[in-house]
């Protein structure tokens, strides 16, 4: 479908970022109740039980009912809490998650410019040249919401949950950043639109040139590291230690009720969506179709389809695996994932340098060193 | 069971099981009564000898009662008639249930159970704790203390275990008042009670109006 540049008085090229903002916000905020429903239904299927089936057809309205219930619940403020921090924390959880969605391109539209040239315009809120860094910066801010929620609740379970959670997020962020840097190396860009565009095309006309298939399997290893790290980063099972209900009641949001609790909940699901979106864009070709003959399906359907696949993996893993213990979680992050990611990054840089001898070696070395220095900088925490 | 061959009970000196014999050897005047019933042996001993006898039971290679099954309290007070039932001359007994657990791997144990009973008079409601011999006596002794008010000297942590800390009285004593719980019925009257009128129930256990009633009784 090709859209002309000017529909009436509206310049489509200029309008696209605003459409993208609406799409991202609507997608994330509307999909969260849907996700809850999907999760409950899928988990129920796996667990051989019925799942939600009371409110609406097949329980479809269940999450809306839950939302309404939460909205009208009493907003409890525990005694002796630091009010400012206590109210700030849920905001700090959801805002970075939503903001990080701004850098994820989720589709492409073809626009016939007035000059007659058909130009593919990516659907992304902010097509910034440091998109990946932007996302990393925002995900690194997510820890504040958790740690402050834990501290401000004036509850030991919350405090332990908050500390655990932040330590976990920090440790897995390293592996995640390194895995992302592998993708950056493969595509030679920090801009996610460039990264997705780079993944177009097919080997032998059938195997998509997605990053996950690139670099002789190194892309796949990096992808696996990223997927593990993203599960831990979003505090989902089997890494859901901060809110391990059997140990810490509900972790950092034990003392939160009503809409503040709902915001934490939405933040969790929103960050699930965002990291899945990054995975899709970075490793699985974003809006690029799986096979060339499936190109007639619109890009956004491909994107959402891939994204939902990750959500399904999330749910499946949650229903299957027991929870890791905290020290095992840390040692997995620091002793296994991080060294593995470093090795993969090194190999990726090596392969990249060997593959493109025409380019000055310096720039790759530069990237490698920068990556290393960022990693070391982060490992200080 | 194999050691205690049944003998003529009329005999003034019946053939005793090995446990009784061992106790008699070590502490000639400890045993008050030996009771055989349905194959179980119950040895009532003076309470001063409890730690020594229990330790003997555990440490003696021939006895080898390695497993501390439990201990429990019994109150023999006849609350209606006064006096003690079954002709006892002590009100409480603490029954130590010891088991010689057969462990084929370690080659230990005789698969034999023995009940050592400590006779505890009402006016000296205490007995030495055996927690240093069997750490497992910790909770049961606390429960006996809670339920019967028998104090265990030397117990590391003698607190109430099942009832709340501010509870008054020891509920499993036979003279503990029953009923009379202050339940508000629709017509404004209080619920059924024992004896005449409303007996204030120790369920209202915070030291206050009911404490004096219970402490008097």
């Amino acid at each position, binding site marked *: 479908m090709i859209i002309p540049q000017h529909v009436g008085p509206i310049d489509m090229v200029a309008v696209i970022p605003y459409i993208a903002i609406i799409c991202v916000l609507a997608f994330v905020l509307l999909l969260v109740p849907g996700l809850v429903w999907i999760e409950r239904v899928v988990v129920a299927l796996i667990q051989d039980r019925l799942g939600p089936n009371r409110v609406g057809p097949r329980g479809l309205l269940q999450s809306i009912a839950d939302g309404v219930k939460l909205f009208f619940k009493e907003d409890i403020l525990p005694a002796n809490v*630091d009010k*400012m*921090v206590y109210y*700030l924390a849920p905001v700090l959880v959801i805002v970075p998650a939503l903001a990080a969605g701004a850098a994820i391109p989720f589709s492409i539209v073809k626009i016939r410019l007035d000059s007659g040239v058909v130009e593919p315009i990516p659907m992304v809120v902010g097509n*910034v*040249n*440091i998109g990946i*860094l*932007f996302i*990393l*910066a*925002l995900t*690194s*801010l997510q*820890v*504040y919401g958790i*740690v*402050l929620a*834990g*501290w401000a609740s004036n509850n030991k379970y919350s*405090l332990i949950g*908050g*500390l655990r959670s*932040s*330590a976990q997020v*920090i440790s897995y*962020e390293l592996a995640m950043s390194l895995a992302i840097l592998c993708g950056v190396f493969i595509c030679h860009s*920090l801009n996610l639109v460039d990264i997705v565009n780079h993944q177009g095309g097919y080997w032998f006309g059938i195997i998509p040139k997605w990053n996950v298939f690139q670099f002789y399997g190194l892309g796949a290893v990096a992808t696996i590291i990223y997927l593990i790290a993203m599960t831990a980063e979003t505090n989902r099972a089997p890494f859901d230690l901060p809110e391990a209900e059997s140990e810490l009641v509900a972790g950092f949001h034990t003392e939160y009720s009503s809409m503040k609790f709902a915001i934490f909940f939405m933040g969790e699901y929103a960050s699930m969506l965002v990291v899945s979106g990054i995975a899709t864009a970075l490793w699985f070709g974003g809006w690029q179709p799986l096979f060339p003959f499936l190109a007639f399906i619109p890009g956004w359907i491909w994107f959402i389809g891939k994204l939902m696949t990750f959500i399904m993996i999330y749910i499946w893993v949650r229903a299957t695996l027991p929870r890791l213990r905290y020290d095992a979680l840390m040692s997995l992050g620091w002793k296994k994932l991080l060294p593995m990611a470093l090795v993969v990054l090194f190999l990726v840089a090596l392969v990249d340098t060997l593959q493109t001898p025409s380019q000055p070696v*310096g*720039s790759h*070395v*530069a*990237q490698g*060193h*920068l990556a*290393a*220095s*960022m990693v*070391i*900088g*982060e*490992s*200080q*925490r | 069971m194999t050691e205690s061959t049944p003998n003529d009970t009329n005999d003034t000196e019946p053939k005793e099981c090995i446990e009784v014999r061992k106790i008699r050897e070590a502490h000639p005047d400890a045993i008050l009564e030996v009771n055989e019933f349905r194959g179980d042996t119950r040895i009532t001993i003076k309470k001063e000898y409890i730690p020594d006898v229990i330790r003997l039971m555990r440490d003696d290679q021939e006895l080898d009662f390695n497993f501390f099954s439990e201990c429990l309290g019994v109150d023999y007070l006849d609350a209606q008639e006064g006096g003690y039932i079954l002709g006892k001359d002590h009100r409480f007994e603490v029954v130590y249930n010891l088991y010689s657990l057969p462990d084929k791997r370690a080659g230990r144990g005789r698969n034999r159970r023995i009940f050592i009973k400590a006779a505890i008079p009402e006016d000296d409601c205490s007995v030495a704790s055996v927690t240093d011999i069997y750490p497992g006596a910790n909770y049961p002794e606390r429960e006996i203390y809670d339920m019967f008010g028998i104090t265990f000297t030397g117990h590391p942590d003698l607190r109430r275990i099942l009832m709340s800390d501010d509870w008054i009285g020891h509920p499993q004593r036979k003279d503990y008042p029953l009923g009379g719980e202050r339940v508000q019925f629709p017509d404004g009257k209080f619920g059924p009670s024992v004896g005449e009128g409303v007996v204030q129930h120790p369920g209202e256990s915070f030291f206050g109006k009911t404490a004096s009633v219970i402490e008097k009784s």
Partner: protein
Amino acid sequence: MGRGLAILNWSLIGFWIMAIISVCSAVLMIANRNPVRSALFLVLGFMMQALLYLSMSAQFIAAVQIIVYAGAIMVLFLFVIMLLNIGSPEALRERGGLQAPAAIVLAIVFLLLLAGVGALGGSQINHLMNPSVIPNYGTVDAIGKTIFDPSKPWLFPFEATSILLLIGVVGAITLAKRRL
């Protein structure tokens, strides 16, 4: 844009907003008794500085500012505050004395000094309103090429810094671990 409105251009308005917020957050940081709140105000200040860097087209530095300062260093601060349980304001009572007035006097002297230096040497600076622009200024590409350009003096300090960081890691572990 008219000449009279030049003083009110958007960059300048943005600068003033960011500047005021960062100064206010800095003041609140030192005025606050609760270390957690101090840390939060400092984070706010860092964010503002990241925005200031962006306004000076130093995108990479801005991103690194958030990742390293806000995402790493301040979280570490919060961690230590919470672990040592000195988050409550009563934990440390600031004692008065001559220190605070003396500090403020010193600060005023220092500011005056700075202003004096600015007045003496700032005349040349003020003339150059528009910075010279080089292509790709501030991007990752430019920074990487600058650092690793053998003709420029940055490569050796950069490597030395990485060793310093390594020493820092080892030192932190040595200090924190009760028994190695």
